[in-house]
């Protein structure tokens, strides 16, 4: 269910005279996610009781599966200065524009060590999720969110933006009875392409094959970037190029994105990704090696095993568990590690190696990287990345925003 005001005049009326608070990019993205239903059944930011349940039982207070707290952190001084109290409704501003209203239900502090340990299984400050939590302000506000201003997505993002409601409509239009989500933060090499193709076979299972009713939803994660990451535009357009160049049929493939600040919480985050894709209308979700992991904090397949630990019926999306795809010089093809017997001769896809090839602007062989995708990545570098397909300081400083908020 969406929590978005229907008209500008209603929005203007709602925000008149409200105290306003500026929010960070992460909170803005999460307001949008809550309001459009990416985080259903959440209607707002969590209070202490919900967070306790999430940390202790991986559920909301009513027992609904939920793995990661969704919180609104704020400086205590701001609460004092603005005299924000329980029962108030406040206006949230992002980049000086009205974004949403928050109905203040609770103002509280929380034991961050408990939260970090529960979500990440560690409190090690080197873990990027822990680092993110260490940057949170010391006070939290819980309350329902209503979006008062619809974000206007900038090209090329506008072509790929679907709210859960729109995505469910799109899936229905395509006639897909089953949809498998492929989560990514990479431009696709052939290993990724085959991960998706393999997941399609698993998902299609016993379904008819003369008339295809199973689709792949490429669900890119768009969030904060660091120097050296692929630029967002190259990721989206690279995946779309696989489609446009015919490596995926038009009727079984769709590219979109979700705005989310990765926590790198491994198995817990895999559950959250499954919930988000269930809300988008997916019936299946592919999980590969090291899903949402970082360093050596989680086992390579912990994000698979966690699905064995959740009560039956708590998710309406099925995990598709996959091993690696590699190139085998004996088979002479990209093949599945669960099938190929030439493990000694295998040539593994290494993200770092592929990045190194792209960095050198050397066109890879078509077996490992489709030439059309390579050209698209290079074109995106020129058009959006100030000459580089990877984030540079210049890109981070000058890039166009993913979305803008119109003036109310």
């Amino acid at each position, binding site marked *: 269910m969406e929590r978005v005001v229907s008209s500008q005049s209603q929005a203007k009326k709602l925000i008149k005279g409200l105290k306003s608070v500026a929010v960070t990019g992460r909170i803005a993205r999460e307001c949008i996610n809550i309001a459009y239903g990416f985080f259903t059944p959440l209607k707002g930011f969590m209070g202490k009781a919900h967070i306790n349940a999430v940390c202790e039982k991986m559920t909301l207070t009513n027992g609904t599966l939920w793995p990661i707290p969704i919180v609104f952190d704020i400086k205590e001084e701001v609460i004092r200065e603005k005299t924000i109290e329980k029962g108030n409704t406040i206006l949230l501003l992002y980049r000086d524009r009205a974004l949403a209203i928050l109905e203040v239900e609770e103002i509280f502090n929380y034991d961050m060590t408990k939260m970090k340990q529960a979500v990440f299984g560690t409190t090690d400050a080197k873990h990027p999720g822990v680092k993110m939590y260490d940057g949170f302000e010391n006070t939290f506000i819980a309350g329902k969110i209503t979006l008062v201003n619809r974000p206007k997505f900038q090209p090329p993002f506008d072509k790929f933006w679907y709210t859960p409601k729109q995505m469910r409509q799109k899936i229905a239009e395509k006639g897909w009875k089953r949809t498998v989500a492929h989560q990514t933060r990479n431009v696709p090499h*052939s290993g990724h392409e085959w991960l998706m193709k393999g997941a399609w076979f698993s998902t299609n299972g016993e379904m008819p094959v003369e008339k295809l009713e199973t689709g792949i939803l490429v669900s890119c994660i768009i969030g904060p970037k660091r*120097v*050296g990451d692929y630029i967002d535009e190259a990721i989206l357009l690279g995946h779309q190029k696989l489609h446009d160049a015919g490596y995926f049929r038009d009727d079984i493939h769709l590219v979109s994105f979700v705005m989310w600040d990765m926590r790198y919480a491994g198995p817990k985050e895999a559950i959250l990704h499954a919930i988000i894709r269930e809300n988008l209308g997916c019936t299946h979700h592919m999980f590969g090696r090291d899903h949402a992991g970082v360093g050596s904090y989680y086992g390579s397949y912990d994000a698979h095993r966690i699905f064995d630990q959740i009560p039956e019926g708590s998710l309406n999306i099925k995990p598709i568990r996959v091993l690696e795809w590699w*190139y085998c*010089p004996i088979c002479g093809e*990209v093949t599945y590690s669960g099938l190929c017997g030439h493990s000694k001769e295998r*040539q*593994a*896809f*290494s993200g*770092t*190696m592929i*990045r*190194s*090839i792209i*960095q*050198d*602007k*050397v*066109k*890879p*062989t078509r*077996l*490992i990287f489709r030439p059309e995708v390579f050209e698209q990545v290079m074109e995106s570098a020129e058009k959006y990345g100030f000459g580089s397909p990877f984030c540079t300081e210049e890109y981070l400083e000058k890039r166009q925003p993913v979305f803008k908020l119109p003036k109310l």
Partner: protein
Amino acid sequence: MKDIKVRMTEKYPINIWINEERHEKLKKLGLADMTEDVLAGMKVLRLYCTDDQKNQLLKLYPMAKYDSATTKSIELLPADAKDEMFELVIERKRLDVIEEFLKVKKNLSRK
């Protein structure tokens, strides 16, 4: 002490990726067999640095890094620096060109 010895003898590769054009150049000079086939026909020429050369390179190119976790090679060097290294290989017809590369760069920075 043991650690220092290991570091002194360890070699740090730089991966120069070889496309068809580069492969042709190497072939003409009879150097094509210096490349390694690493992934689905993707060829690489590995130039090895000493610990000291690695440190000098990382100082010269602060965005570069030694990837000790996965590739165990020096990564994120600018493409034009690698182009220059490749051209030195072609000119000198040998792989140990890093010392000369660093010397040229030092001379340039002095000017």
